[in-house]
């Protein structure tokens, strides 16, 4: 059974749909009544750690809101743990822990009282074990010493960890984390990452959104990449790596001449830049390419076969950071 499956899931914020208020960090595109999520077909395999990547405003949060039954799709379907959403929300979400758009708790309650509040709202939770479960969840995120402290006095990292504790109040089959390291310092980021690893090691499927590839590539088995509401890539992480073409790079005093040789070997995209020539390696053998270069009298100072970094692939899929999609 797929942990998350959507078919043609679409959300269009119109004049009517946007009436809920301005608190939801809607992108400029959404406010103009445009597609926030455009026919996406998510497939999240059970047991995977699925990185849901994309720049801010690419529709990640809106998608997560639909998966949790907070927002209703304009069209398309979604199923979480095999149960259709939003119709089956109350039948399945108790198996799903979530962190959406940052932590939110009652500032005048303590950390423990806040967790008790959410646990009391859960119709399937056993009140008899609530105290023990709250203690265990707080312990797991290292907040037990601050259990009685008011949420108002928590630091940002503590707030974030309390939100993760809320997601761990019960054994979950799926954890959905929306930008779990937003606003955290490097230390906090590392802590959250190691928490995610632990959760995944227990066999829980983790669906984690981020606008930073580097943040999740170390822990993800699968990735989905969003760009302006569309899912532009989805699959196992190694598959994303394979989409990048391996290039040969030649450092030489005369890149132009080297490019001619590379092109002569029928390598694609031969080009010269910054004192080096490069081309897509394709099926050619690097040894032979090097030999041909030397044979043609090119002074080869350096020769390399390079796979593109994930970062390059990610940026290739989502566009440069400063590039504003004209929607």
């Amino acid at each position: 059974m797929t942990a998350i499956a959507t078919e043609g899931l679409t959300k269009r914020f119109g004049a009517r749909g946007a009436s809920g208020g301005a608190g939801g960090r809607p992108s400029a595109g959404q406010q103009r009544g445009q597609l926030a999520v455009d026919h996406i077909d998510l497939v999240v395999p059970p047991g995977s750690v699925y990185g849901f990547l994309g720049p801010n405003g690419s529709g990640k949060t809106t998608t997560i809101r639909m998966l949790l039954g907070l927002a209703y799709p304009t069209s398309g379907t979604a199923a979480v743990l095999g149960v259709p959403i939003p119709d089956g929300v109350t039948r399945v979400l108790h198996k799903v822990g979530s962190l959406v758009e940052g932590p939110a708790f009652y500032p005048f309650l303590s950390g423990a009282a806040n967790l008790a509040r959410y646990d009391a709202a859960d119709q399937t939770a056993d009140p008899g074990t609530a105290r023990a479960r709250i203690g265990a969840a707080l312990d797991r995120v290292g907040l037990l010493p601050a259990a009685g402290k008011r949420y108002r006095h928590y630091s940002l990292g503590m707030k974030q960890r309390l939100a993760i504790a809320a997601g761990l109040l019960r054994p979950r089959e799926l954890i959905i984390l929306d930008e779990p390291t937003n606003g955290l310092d490097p230390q906090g980021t590392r802590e959250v990452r190691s928490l995610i690893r632990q959760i995944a090691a227990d066999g829980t499927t983790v669906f984690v959104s981020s606008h930073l590839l580097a943040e999740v590539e170390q822990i993800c088995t699968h990735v989905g990449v969003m760009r302006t509401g569309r899912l532009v890539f989805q699959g196992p992480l190694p598959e994303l790596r394979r989409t990048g073409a391996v290039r040969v790079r030649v450092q030489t005093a005369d890149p132009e001449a080297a490019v001619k040789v590379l092109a002569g070997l029928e390598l694609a995209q031969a080009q010269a830049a910054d004192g080096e020539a490069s081309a897509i390696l394709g099926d050619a053998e690097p040894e032979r390419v090097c030999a041909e270069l030397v044979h043609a009298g090119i002074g080869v100072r350096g020769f390399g076969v390079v796979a593109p970094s994930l970062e390059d692939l990610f940026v290739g899929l989502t566009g440069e950071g400063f590039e504003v999609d004209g929607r």
Partner: protein
Amino acid sequence: MTWVRFFRSELRLVFGRKRNLGLLAVTAAFPVLIGIALKIAAPHGRNGGANSDAAFFNQLAGNGVFLTFIALSSLLLLVLPVVVSVVAGDSIAGEAGYGTLRYLLAVPAGRTRLLTVKYATVVVFGLCASFVVSAVALVVGAALFPVGPVTLLSGQTDSLPLGLLRVLFVTLYVAAALAALGAIGLAISTLTEHGIGAIAAVMILVVTSEVVDNVPQLAAVGPYLPTHWWVSFDSLLRAPVETSVLLRGLLSFAVYTVLFCSLAWARFTSADVTS
């Protein structure tokens, strides 16, 4: 039952908040102030008792029990509506403002279930506020004025226990009025994520309704206003009780409650939660 657990959690949240406890404390202070003021002013026989308030005031000098009716009818003008508006207006909007609404729904609390818990708590809070007024007024009335058999507005005299029973029913009637206002507040609360906005909107509604109700030229719409039947509880202080008036009042409360709870439900179960 899990609904009860959620409801208890909501009661703890609402009754544990300093703001709400402060409101109840203020509510409790008013009967004391009114009692002292009336004791000092000693208003017996000053006017002809043309309206029910004046009638209460005339009776008070002879019987402290009447302080409950005086306090309830005075506080129904503004203080009790404010108390209920705050809790009802904040019910959904406040959760949206904190962002806790999205987590409650993702728990999942269930939208309809959450709404019923919220409304039940608003009703309990209104009930509680009404009884605070009655109880404090009764104590202060007994301390400052003589207490004995209760002379009704229609002239007959009830024994003290029967008189106290009438106090109980009057208080419940007021709580019913506040429950109807609570339903309006709940509906408004589903429209926004700014608690203070919802609270203000409910208050504006109450004041507007009271003003319109006092314009003679608009008498035709009076009976349909949400506040029109609020002080009709003086019907309970007559023998026999004017049941036709009471029933019309209760019918008005029931209609407002059903109508606005339905609106709240329709809105809350269909709208995206964007907070």
